[in-house]
């Protein structure tokens, strides 16, 4: 079925790791990682240096609207810069992961500033203890207003957050009762934001007037907290929100649920979440591995992932290209390959919009259930967007990344003309060791053959290589990670 190309070597394994923990690798990045080896690359992923992304002061000077991050094109493209230019893409992959699981939407919370702060929090806590993360999440102002916890009062509970932390964020349906939901909600009474009446009115009225939005501040209102006795998941006490989170975190259902999400995001497409109560995980052994790491390492998400990445399950060939890329992966991976956004540019809005048109508005999931993922990403409309965005982005031989690829091909073939088979192999290698089916490879070779001779050192040759790269990022295989 598949060719043996780009599958068997350690470098292929590293490329697999970088697709999952980042957005694929440019030839330079892959070379660096190759020098470290698989274990060395893992060490660096879990001990990253500075993100060294495009500086925020430059972004804000040129994009006046990135000063308040109010509307989705502004907040989305502010994140887009970071996604495309960071030297530590694993952080962003983690942020995207939690953004999908703890799906909070600017569609309701309206101002983008508090969404960006939530993403910052995911970066900071996303690989640490799940307990710390849930506490931060419960105090996150965007989450509080997204799930109406500001309306969760001592004498009149609103169980929205109390329910979703159990159902969607930590445990999954079937592991708690309706009474647990109510008791959980009681524990989170009083977890609100400062100036709640005015802030929620402005959110409801969806208005920047008079002076723009005021970013929200978490506030614990002790006088509105229900301090009474609660029975939650079989334990009884005068539980606070923190106590409830402790009980959630030690419950065996929790790491099972989190591990399945991690598997879905980092290993292979799983069934959509609503089916989980009825169908077991595709790969129970992988899930168990992560569950064990969770309990052995103080609920550490990073330890779960590290155990996964070190396992033979993750490394196996069946897990290569086993996920359909999310729109963010398509957009960001392609822009990184092309070497875009070295300096502020209006193109960032096009990239953010393209991601939206493909079905993933950054910071704007359509519901609390986040994006389904898998083949849900694929429709005729989204395919047009995916193919056109990728091929447009790659279609300029003067871009830093494209120039680098062409330069490497020229270096490999100092004598001039490259034969079509070799050129296709080179290009597949240089876009991150992409594996394609025989039929695809033959089609690409035929396309090159129709172009006539290709001398990478010439402008004509560079143009032809660019066309081939455009076709490669339009393939079915490029849709997979």
């Amino acid at each position, binding site marked *: 079925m598949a060719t043996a190309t780009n599958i068997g070597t350690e470098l292929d394994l590293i490329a697999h790791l970088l697709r999952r923990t980042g957005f694929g690798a440019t030839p330079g990045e892959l070379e660096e990682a190759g020098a470290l080896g698989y274990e060395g690359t893992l060490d660096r992923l879990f001990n990253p240096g500075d993100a060294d992304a495009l500086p925020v002061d430059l972004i804000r000077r040129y994009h*006046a609207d990135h*000063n308040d991050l109010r509307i989705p094109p502004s907040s989305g493209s502010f994140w887009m810069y970071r996604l495309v230019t960071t030297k530590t893409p694993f952080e962003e992959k983690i942020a995207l992961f939690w953004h999908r699981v703890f799906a909070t939407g600017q569609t309701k919370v309206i101002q983008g500033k508090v969404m960006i702060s939530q993403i910052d929090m995911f970066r900071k806590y996303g690989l640490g203890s799940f307990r710390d993360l849930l506490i931060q999440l419960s105090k996150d102002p965007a989450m509080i207003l997204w799930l109406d916890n500001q309306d969760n009062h001592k004498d009149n509970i609103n169980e929205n957050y109390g329910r979703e932390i159990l159902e969607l964020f930590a445990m999954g349906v079937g592991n708690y009762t309706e009474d647990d939901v109510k008791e959980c909600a009681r524990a989170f009474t009083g977890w609100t934001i400062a100036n709640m009446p005015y802030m929620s*009115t402005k959110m409801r009225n969806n208005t920047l*007037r*008079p*002076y*723009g939005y005021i970013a929200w501040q978490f506030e614990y209102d002790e006088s509105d907290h229900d301090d009474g006795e609660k029975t939650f998941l079989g334990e009884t006490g005068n539980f606070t929100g923190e106590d409830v989170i402790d009980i959630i975190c030690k419950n065996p259902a929790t790491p099972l649920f989190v591990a399945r999400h991690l598997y879905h995001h980092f290993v292979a497409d799983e069934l959509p979440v609503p089916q989980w109560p009825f169908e077991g995980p595709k790969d129970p052994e992988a899930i168990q591995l992560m569950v064990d790491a969770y309990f052995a390492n103080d609920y550490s998400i990073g330890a779960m992932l590290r155990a996964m990445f070190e396992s033979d399950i993750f490394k196996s060939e069946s897990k290569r290209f086993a996920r359909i890329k999310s729109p963010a992966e398509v957009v960001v991976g392609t822009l990184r390959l092309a070497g875009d956004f070295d300096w502020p540019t209006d193109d960032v809005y096009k990239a953010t919009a393209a991601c939206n048109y493909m079905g993933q508005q950054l910071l704007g999931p359509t519901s609390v259930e986040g994006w389904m993922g898998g083949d849900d990403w694929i429709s005729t409309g989204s395919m047009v967007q995916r193919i056109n965005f990728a091929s447009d982005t790659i279609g300029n031989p003067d871009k830093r990344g494209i120039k680098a690829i062409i330069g490497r091909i020229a270096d490999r073939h100092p004598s001039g003309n490259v034969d079509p088979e070799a050129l296709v192999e080179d290009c597949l290698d240089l876009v991150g060791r992409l594996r394609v089916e025989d039929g695809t490879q033959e089609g690409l070779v035929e396309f090159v053959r129709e172009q006539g001779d290709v001398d990478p050192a010439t402008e004509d040759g560079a143009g032809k290589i660019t066309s081939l790269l455009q076709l490669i990022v339009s393939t079915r295989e490029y849709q997979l990670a």
Partner: protein
Amino acid sequence: MTTETQKQLKYIDTNGFGAAQGGRGYHFPVDIAVRKDGLIYVLSRSGQGSLNGTGISVTDIDHHWHGEFSGYGTADGQMQWGTAIAIDSSDRLFLADEKMQRITIFDLDNNYVSHWGTAGSGPGEFDGPSGLSIDADGNLLVVDHKNHRVQRYTADGEYIDSFGSEGSASGQFNYPWGITTAPDGTIYVADWRNDRIQRFTSDGVFIDAHGDSGEGDGQFSRPSSVAVDHDGFIYVADWQNQRVQVFDKEWNFQTIVRGEAGLSPWAAEYIDANKDEKIAREVFNPYPKLDVDELYEVSARTEPYFWVPVSVTTYGDDRLLVLETARHRFQIFETV
């Protein structure tokens, strides 16, 4: 440093309103200029998704609205990425556009007159015109920021000379932004990415530089604009520190203000039309207790504080206007 004679800034008033679609108010304003008859001009750069909010608005110290002109586009008299405005002694207004690399002139009735500018790094060419000021001789100073220099033109756009180059030594710049000519003719440049203010003689000869990176008194984080009053006191928009600092002419630190805006009449009219917001605002504490100390974040959560104070200018003998990009308003202070 504390002495009896220190300069203080006393808050008086706020003018503004978020007007994403144009009309009475501003949207992501980036520069402000005062005409000698007291009219106040505000350049709204606006942003993606709200190009109608781009233009130059005219108001006065008593909150009258005198309309707006220019707008988003590439035609004569329009702008894309407006960066600065300046008004000369014959009431002609100059507008810098860093995307189209051009300076546009409007007459005293806000009608388009002409424009000039081409992209490049040679004499008379631009790579990102930003700050503008009229010098002591009535010529126009243009901060050509990505060329790290200041160029001088006649009021009709004829190139005269330039000074500065890229770097951090005396007289060199790192993406400079705002510029002003003091009443005595001295030229002040906000050397943005060097976190300092530099002074030059009216001939462009380096005098001195002040400031280094930081959040302390007398330190800067990306200063964007500077103004000088008749007594030589210096006001700096300390852009990324979300504050305005005041110095005497020997750079002795005087004071810092962070802003204390109240509702402008336009804002009050809006609140009156929206009763639910009015009621909610009655129990609104403008200075909530915060759990962060990063200055940008503090300003984002505190409505009266400056949020991205981008431009400062004097008004009459004893007032200072502080324009805030992210709050679509300017605050008025008395200099006492």
